[in-house]
C-alpha cells in the first residue's frame, strides 16, 4: 500500500509546485526594473544584446514555457548577478550550508523540546513545570532575529567565547550560535506541545494499568506514553520545517553564512530572476518532500491511520 500512497502524494504535489513556480515567475517579472539596471547605464544596443542573450526579449508567455521546460530538465538557468555561475552551481554551493543549519536546528528543537515537555508533564503543576513552561513561553515570544543579536552580543562580544559570524568551513564553533538562535522558538513550541499531550496521555487508562503493574516510571514515560504523546509533535514537524527554512533567511544574513537564504533576498532586490526562482523551487520541493515524510512517519506510529 505504501508505494501507491507515496506515488499518489507525489502526483498531488505537482499542482502545488506548478502554482508556486507560476506565481513566483510572474510576480518577479512584473516587478519594475530588470536584472541589468544596477550596473552603470548600458547603451541601448548592448542592453538589447544582453536581453537577447538571455532570451528576455521574447514574449513573457514564451519565456515562461521555456523556463518550465528547462526546469523539468533540471536546469535552473544562468544567474544574472553572478554571471560566471549557473543557478545550479550557486544552489549546490549554498544548499549544504542551509541544510546543515536547518537540520541541526530542527533536530535540536525536537530533541530538547520533547525532553523538556516530558519532564514538565511528569512533574505537572510543580514549580519545575512552571519554570520550564514559563521559559518556553518566553522562548516563543522572542523571535529569532531578536535572539540572534542578543546571543552575539553576549557570547561573542562580551564574553568572546564564540565567533560572531562566518561559516569557518562548517566548524562546530561557528554553528553553535546560529543553530541555537534558529532552534529556540521551535524548541519552546515543541516543549509546550509535548507537555500538553503528555499530560493528557498520563491520565489515560493504559498508563494507570502500567503503573499498577509496577512498571518503572522511566519505562512508562519513555516507552509507553511518549509514543502516543508524540503524535501532535510529529504533525507539527511540517510547519516547523517550513518555518525553520524561512527563519534561516534572516539567521544566515545576521551571521553572514554562505547559505541559500541570502541569495533569496539579495536576488530579489537585484532582479536576478533565475536565482530567485531557483531558490523558490528548491524550497517548494523541500517542503513538499518533508511533508510527505512527516505524513508517512505519522501513519507508521499511529495505528489508527491507514493509507487510502
Amino acid at each position, binding site marked *: 500500500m505504501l508505494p501507491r500512497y507515496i506515488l499518489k502524494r507525489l502526483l498531488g*504535489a505537482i*499542482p*502545488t509546485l506548478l*502554482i*508556486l513556480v507560476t*506565481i*513566483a515567475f510572474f*510576480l*518577479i517579472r*512584473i*516587478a*519594475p526594473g530588470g536584472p541589468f539596471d544596477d550596473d552603470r547605464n548600458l547603451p541601448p544596443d548592448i542592453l538589447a544584446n544582453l536581453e537577447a542573450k538571455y532570451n528576455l526579449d521574447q514574449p513573457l508567455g514564451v519565456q515562461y514555457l521555456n523556463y518550465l521546460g528547462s526546469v523539468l530538465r533540471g536546469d535552473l538557468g544562468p544567474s544574472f548577478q553572478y554571471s560566471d555561475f549557473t543557478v545550479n552551481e550557486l544552489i549546490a554551493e549554498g544548499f549544504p550550508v542551509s541544510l546543515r543549519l536547518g537540520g541541526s536546528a530542527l533536530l535540536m528543537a525536537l530533541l530538547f523540546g520533547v525532553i523538556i515537555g516530558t519532564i514538565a508533564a511528569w512533574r505537572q503543576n510543580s514549580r519545575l513545570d512552571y519554570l520550564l513552561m514559563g521559559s518556553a*513561553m*518566553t522562548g*516563543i*515570544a*522572542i*523571535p529569532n*532575529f*531578536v535572539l*540572534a*543579536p*542578543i546571543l*552575539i*552580543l553576549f557570547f561573542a*562580544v562580551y564574553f568572546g567565547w564564540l565567533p560572531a559570524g562566518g561559516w569557518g568551513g562548517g566548524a562546530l564553533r561557528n554553528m553553535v550560535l546560529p543553530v541555537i538562535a534558529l532552534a529556540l522558538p521551535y524548541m519552546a513550541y515543541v516543549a509546550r506541545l509535548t507537555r500538553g499531550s503528555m499530560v493528557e496521555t498520563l491520565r489515560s487508562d493504559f498508563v494507570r494499568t502500567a503503573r499498577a503493574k509496577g512498571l518503572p516510571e522511566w519505562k512508562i514515560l519513555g516507552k509507553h506514553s511518549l509514543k502516543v504523546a508524540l503524535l501532535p509533535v510529529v504533525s507539527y514537524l511540517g510547519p516547523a520545517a*517550513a518555518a525553520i*527554512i*524561512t527563519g534561516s*533567511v*534572516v539567521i544566515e*544574513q*545576521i551571521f553572514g553564512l554562505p547559505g541559500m537564504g541570502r541569495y*533569496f*533576498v539579495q536576488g*530579489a*532586490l537585484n532582479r536576478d530572476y533565475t536565482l*530567485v526562482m531557483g*531558490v*523558490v523551487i528548491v*524550497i*517548494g520541493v523541500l*517542503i*513538499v518532500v518533508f*511533508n510527505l515524510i512527516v505524513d508517512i512517519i505519522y501513519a507508521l506510529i499511529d495505528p489508527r491511520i491507514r493509507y487510502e
Partner: protein
Amino acid sequence: MSTPASAMSNFDHAAAASGRSLWHLAWLRLKRNRAALTAAVVLAVIFLLVIFGPILSPHSFAHPYWEQISAPPSLETRHFFGTDSIGRDLFVRTLHGGRMSLMVGLVATGVALLIGVAWGAIAGFVGGRVDNIMMRVVDILYALPFMFLVILLMVVFGRNILLIFVAIGSYIWLDMARIVRGQTLSLRQKEFVEAAEALGVRAWVIIWRHIVPNLLGIVAVYVTLTVPKVILVESFLSFLGLGVQEPNTSWGALVNEGAQDMEFAPWGLFFPAAFLAATLFCLNFLGDGLRDALDPKDR
C-alpha cells in the same frame, strides 16, 4: 394577576439570572486564571502607552538631534530610552513603531478573519463537492512557502503598508478556514440547524444566524493567537528592510537598527525588543487562557 406580557418579561428575567451562558462561564474561568489576567492587564498598559505615550515626551519620532547621537537613556534630556544612530528619540520611536506593529497585527488579522470565516463556514456548511474543491485550494496554498512569496511581493511592489496588510492577511486566513470548517461540520449535525432547515430558512441565513455565532468562541481564541503571529511576520519583513518606510517605523525595523549598533548602544536593541517580546508573550498567554476558559470539555 399578571398579563401575558409581564409574565414573559418575568420569565426572561428569571432565565437570564439562572442560566449561565458559555460566555459567562468562560469569563468566570478566565478571572481565576491569574496568568491570563496579568497578561491582559500588561497588554492594556502597552496599548495605552502606544496610543498616548508619545504625548508624554517633548520629542517627535522623526526629529534628529545631531548633538545627541546614540545617547544613552536619560531623564534629564527626556530621552527616556536614549536616541538612535541619527539622534532620534527612541522612546517615541518605540511607541510609534508599536502603533505600526499593533495596527498591522489587528488589521491583517481582521482580513484573515473575514476571508477565513466565510471560506470555512461555506465549505463546511455546503459540504460535498464544493467543500472538496474549497479545501483542496486551501491545501495547495498551505503547501506554498508563503513567506518567500510575501518577500517577493514586497520587493516587487515596494514598501507599502496596505500591501503588508493584504499580503499577510491573505496568507494567515488558511488556518482560520480550516478551523472554522471543522467546527461548522460538527455544528451542521446539530438539531437547531436541522430545525432551521426544516422550517425552510435559507442557507446563508442559517450560516449567518446559527453557524457564525456558535463559532465565536473558537474564533476569539484564534484571533488572540493570530495577532502575535502577524506582528511577528511584519517584524520579520521590517527586519529584512522590506517593511515600513522611513521615517515611519515598527518594532521589527527598530530591532534591526538596534542590532547594528548594539555594541556601543545596546538600549537601541533592548527597548524595542522588550516591547515586542512582551506583547507577543502576553497575547500568547491570553490566547491560551481564553482557550482553556472556552473549552467546553473543562466545566
